[in-house]
C-alpha cells in the first residue's frame, strides 16, 4: 500500500486552518535561548525543507511542531488547537495525526520489523488481523517486503530510514515530519527516500523535512513545489525563492 489518502480525519480540522502554525515561538533551555521569534505556517498539502547548520535548532523546531517539546514563549497551534492546552490524552491523539521520522529512527529492538511498522496501529487499538493486506502493501511500497521478520538491529541504515517512514505514514497522518531522513544513507537511497516523501505530498500530506543536505533540496526541485526555511542565529528565515 501506499499510505491512505486523508479521509475523515480532515473533517476534524478547522476549515481553512493551517495544519501547524507557529506564532512568535521561542524555546529556551537551562537559561539559554535556543530558538526565538519563530513564525511559520504549514498549510495543508505543502512541502517544506528546514535547513541550517548542525546545532542550529532544526531538531528542536521539529520537536516543537510534533509536541515533543513545548514552546517557552509564543504559541504553537496544531490543527487549530493551542498545543499547550492539550492534555496528555489529547496530545497522544494529536501525535497519531503526525507521522515522525526520527534521525535515529527509534525502533523497539525486540519486535520484528512488521510489528514496529504497525506500532501506531497497535497503540491506537486497531486489530492488526484486519490490517495485514495494508501492511504488506506498505512494506512493498518502501521496498522492505523481504525484511518483514527482521529485527531492527539487523537492518541497514537505508532500511531503517524506510521502515521509519513506513511507520510514520501507516496511520495516514495529515503531516509527515522527517528529521535528517537521508543523514545515514547513500545518494541512491536518499533519492529513493525523497521520492517516497514526494509521493506522500502528492497524496495530500503536508511534509516537513529537516536536512542540512542541500543536494537533497536541489534534487527535489524538479519534483515538488517546496519552501525552504533556514534557521540562522536562532531565527527562521525563508531561504530565497521557492524551488
Amino acid at each position: 500500500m501506499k499510505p491512505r489518502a486523508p479521509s475523515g480525519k480532515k473533517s476534524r480540522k478547522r476549515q481553512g486552518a493551517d495544519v501547524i502554525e507557529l506564532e512568535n515561538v521561542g524555546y529556551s533551555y537551562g537559561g539559554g535561548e535556543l530558538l526565538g521569534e519563530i513564525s511559520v505556517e504549514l498549510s495543508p498539502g505543502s512541502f517544506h525543507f528546514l535547513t541550517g547548520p548542525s546545532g542550529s535548532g532544526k531538531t528542536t523546531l521539529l520537536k516543537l511542531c510534533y509536541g515533543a517539546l513545548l514552546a517557552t514563549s509564543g504559541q504553537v497551534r496544531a490543527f487549530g488547537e493551542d498545543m499547550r492546552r492539550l492534555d496528555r490524552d489529547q496530545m497522544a491523539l494529536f501525535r497519531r495525526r503526525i507521522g515522525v521520522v526520527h534521525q535515529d529512527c527509534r525502533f523497539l529492538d525486540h519486535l520484528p520489523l512488521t510489528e514496529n511498522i504497525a506500532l501506531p496501529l497497535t497503540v491506537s487499538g486497531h486489530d492488526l488481523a484486519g490490517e495485514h493486506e495494508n501492511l504488506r502493501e506498505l512494506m512493498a511500497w518502501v521496498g522492505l517486503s523481504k525484511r518483514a521478520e527482521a529485527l531492527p538491529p539487523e537492518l541497514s541504515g537505508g532500511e531503517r530510514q524506510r521502515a521509519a517512514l513506513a511507520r510514520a505514514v501507516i496511520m495516514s497522518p495529515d503531516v509527515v515530519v522527517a528529521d535528517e531522513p537521508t543523514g545515514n544513507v547513500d545518494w541512491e537511497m536518499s533519492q529513493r527516500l525523497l521520492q517516497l516523501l514526494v509521493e506522500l505530498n502528492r497524496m495530500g500530506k503536508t511534509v516537513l523535512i529537516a536536512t542540512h543536505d542541500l543536494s537533497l533540496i536541489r534534487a527535489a526541485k524538479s519534483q515538488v513545489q517546496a519552501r525552504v526555511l533556514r534557521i540562522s542565529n536562532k531565527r527562521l528565515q525563508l531561504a530565497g525563492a521557492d524551488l
Partner: protein
Amino acid sequence: MSKGTIRALLMADKQADRVVPPSGFTAQLTLFVSGAMAFLAVFALALSLASGRLADRWASELAQAATLRINAPADQVAAQTQAALAILIQTPGVAEARALSREEQAALLTPWFGPDLPLDTLPVPQLIEIVGGTPAYDAQGLRLRLAAEVPGAVLDDHRRWREPLVDAANSLRRLALVSILLIGGATAAMITLAANAALAANSQVIEVLRLVGARDRYIAGAFVRRFTLRALIGAAVGVLLGMGGVMLLPEASDEGGFLTGLGFRGIGWLLPLLIPVLGAVVAFAATWHAARRRLKELA
C-alpha cells in the same frame, strides 16, 4: 481511578504486552518478593487467629472459674468446708461448687512433688472449685460474707493472673496484624522499586510509544498487567507453601501449651487464599502510581 480504567488496565492485551520487552531481574524480584511476603503473611495470619482464639478461650474459661481455699486448723477444715459450700450454693451467680477430693488435690501437686506425696501428713488447704453462672456472682460481696462466716476461706477468682494472660494474647494478636500490614507495605515498596527499575530500563520504549501516539493508560497498562500477574503468581505460590507449613505444625494439645494449635481452624483455612488477591491489588496500585509518575516526567 474509575472502574472502567481499572478494567482497561487489567484486560489482557497481547499486542500491548508485547511492546514492553521481557525484563529479567525485575520479574524474578517481583515473583520472589511476592512469594516470600505471602509465605510470611500466612504465618502472621495463623499467629493472629491462634492468639485471638487463645485470648477468647482464656477470657471465657477463666471468667467462669474460681477457687476457694480453706486454710484452717486440721480439726476445723471439714466444718469450714461445709459452711463455705452452704454459702456458695446460696450465692446467686454460682452455678456449681464442689470440694476437690484428696486424690484430685494430690493430682494437682504431683507435677511438683511426685506421685508419692503423703498428703495426709501435710497441712494442705482444702480447695473448692466454683463454676460461675450467668449473670456472674458478686465476688466482692461473696468475699465479705465468707470473711464473716468462714474465717479460713480465701476466694481466688483468677483475675490477678487471668488479665495479664488475656492482655498478652491480645497483644500478640495485634502484633500479628501489624506484621501483616508491614508485610503489605514492604511488598508495595519492593514492587514499586521493581516497577521503577523496569520503567527506567524501558524509558526508550516508553518514549517511542508516546511518540507514535500511545496514551499513558496504554503504556501503564502493559507494566501494570505484568507486575500484577507476577505478584499474583508469586503470592499464590507463597501462600500454598505457607499453608503447607502451617499444616505441618503440631496439633493443639495440653502438653504443648501455647506452642501448639497455631494453625487455622475450619473456615479460617480460606482466609490465606485472600492473600494473593490482596498482593495483586497492592502490586496493581504500586505499579500504576509508579508508571503514572514516570510518564508525567516525559513530554
